[in-house]
């Protein structure tokens, strides 16, 4: 069961990274226009 000593912190760290990434995306306004973001990748100029 010693493997738990590594795996549990690793799981929490990965989950925490996901949470931090989401908060960053939210703060920088990436959820303001989901439809637009989907279409903008089709534009050539940016």
């Amino acid at each position, binding site marked *: 069961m010693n493997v738990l000593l590594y795996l549990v912190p690793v*799981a929490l760290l990965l989950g925490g990274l996901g*949470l931090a990434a989401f*908060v960053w995306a939210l703060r920088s306004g990436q959820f*303001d*226009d989901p*439809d637009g973001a989907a*279409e903008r990748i089709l534009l050539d*100029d940016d």
Partner: protein
Amino acid sequence: MSCCTAGSSCAPAPRKTEPRSMEGHTLELIIPGVHCAGCISRIEGAVSGLPGVESVRLNLSTRRLRVGLAAGATGDEVIPTVEGLGYDCRTFSAAEAGSAAQDRQGRELLFALAVAGFAAGNVMLLSVSVWSGAEGATRDLFHWISALIALPAILFAGRPFFRSAWRALKGRSLNMDVPISLAVLLAGGLSLDAAISGGEEAFFDAAVMLLFFLLVGRYLDHRVRARARDTVGQLLSLMASDVTLLVDGGQQRVPVETINAGDMIRVAAGERAPVDGLIVDGQGDLDRSIVTGESMPVTLGPGDQVEAGTLVLTQPLTLRATAVGQHTFLAQVVRLMEEAESGRARYLRLADRAARIYAPAVHLVALLTFIGWMLVTGGDWGQSLWIAVSVLIITCPCALGLAVPAVQVVASGVLFGKGILIKDGTALERLAEARRVVLDKTGTLTSGHPHIIECDLPPSAMALAQGLAAHSRHPLAQAMLTGQGATSAPAPVLTAVTEHPGQGMSGTSDGSVIRLGSRAFAGPGNGVTVPSGMELWLSIDGVPQGHAVLADTLRDGAVETIAALQADGFAPLLLSGDNPTAVADTAQAAGIADWHAEQRPEDKIAAIQALMAAGQKPLMVGDGINDGPALAAAHVSMAPASASDLGRAAADIVFLSDRLDAVTEAMRTARRARALIVQNFGLALAYNLVAVPVAVLGGASPLVAAIAMSSSSLVVTLNALRLRLPGLSLRRRGGAPKVARTGQEVPA
């Protein structure tokens, strides 16, 4: 904020997203037609090239264009540019579009939702290990890790509920958030106790999962929530700030507040009358739509009364002020509006009504469970409290919390796709309850602008007519420029263009006198006039060349919409500020039996209030400033996007399409949504009927609670998605009460 010394350069860092440097400002436009990447590049490309434009961003999700303008730039070219690309666009005020403060609230909820989701996922991982057989030290370790994740998450993500519950308790009432807060906090506390004492079961997973599901509901609810209404401020902006006062033969600009009754003032063409007054000198065409809702100007001369807010179109007028300040017509409309908005009984949402019964019942059941187990176990308060908390968690309204918002989000999404914007979260519920439909005529039932419906002018004469018409603000002249039969030939050069109020206009081209106007002014003199509609004749040196017939036509789909409303028993009622003949014609064309003409704003609001008092819950559909008070007073209201700013702000629902079908479409969706909400309540209740006895008897282990909560939430959400299925028809049951139909007009 850092303090900067005098003389040092402390300009804010130039950030592209914040174009608020100095006096720069943003312009918000709604463009209903945008749908793809091509639209984005075309619009952003064209607008960013305009002078004074600092930033452009088209939001495809909300269909809004945000243009950051440099200090001093007016952005006048933005709208014509977008329209030139073939898109419809309209300005939206910040109040209509939803303020930044609301956005922050939404982000806070989303942040809390993310934290709860993270905690729920990780705690569930650990809980599954416990359920599948972890024992002894491992189980205790897992409980401790769960506690470390869950407790901060509960305190953070639960804040929206704790705040609301605290507010309710301070107001000595119960809302749904009280049992939620109690259950989450008690479950967290008791589970911590279990972790400390090495107990077998902990409810950490149930507590955070409960928060997660409830926050999903709360966030969805927030997205359809009410926008701030800022109608009165918009009305007041119609009042002029400066006035040209005539003193001793001279003129001076003075603030409107300094005008007294009896003062002589001058109103230039294109200005609004600042006060009520009598015309002393001058004759002109005036747009009295603020009083009557009619865009067609009336010709007034010396001795006629002019209301504040009336727009002077053609000639400057001299007025003697008769009423100023709080006594003007416009101020009275503002007062009516304020009364209507404050007098409107606060609508109790369906979910709140359910919570009023549900919240006390939940507490009672939990308390009785606690007492019952105390008696059975002979005073083992630990076990009794544990079971009581499991009852609170099981009954906590995951499904109930999602029942309404899930349906509303789907419904407003469906309507948004059809160009119908819901401005108020309760609007759909109220729309489903409407039993009577009241419509305005001009701009609502009709398109609001005259169109050419018949034209026998040769192309050369048409070009002359358009050359003349380009000089006028008169709606008939504007119609000549845009209507069918419009030529693309270069407009001939006209000189000495003069407007003759009430008659037409004249000008000179190649030495001949061109006249465009009424039959008497430019036509063959007196004769038969067209019964409904207006004629515009063109003459060259007194010889009539032909004429165009113009009329304000019914909106597309108006006849079908009215017929559908009649068939469903809504007995549409037409209230118009226009004259009885015109209203009768339109009513007949649209198939409306019940109409009233010459209705002023106070008459309309009185009619609405009479219907409200009779329990008929009217839906008001209107567009004008004169409809504003009635829109605010009605049980629920709709306005077309072409409506006045005030009309749009006062209405609960705005439709962007030019077709009147939007009204029946919205009503149908609202009724389907209501039926689904009721079904969802039924599902949530059925779930409770099964789960509560199990929990009361002590059978609700954390595993059972986890399965019950997620499955009931899933069922309710899936049921809400049925609204998207086409062809699911939910017919009205019972039908509206039959209303006596009267055909006579009310004396004005």
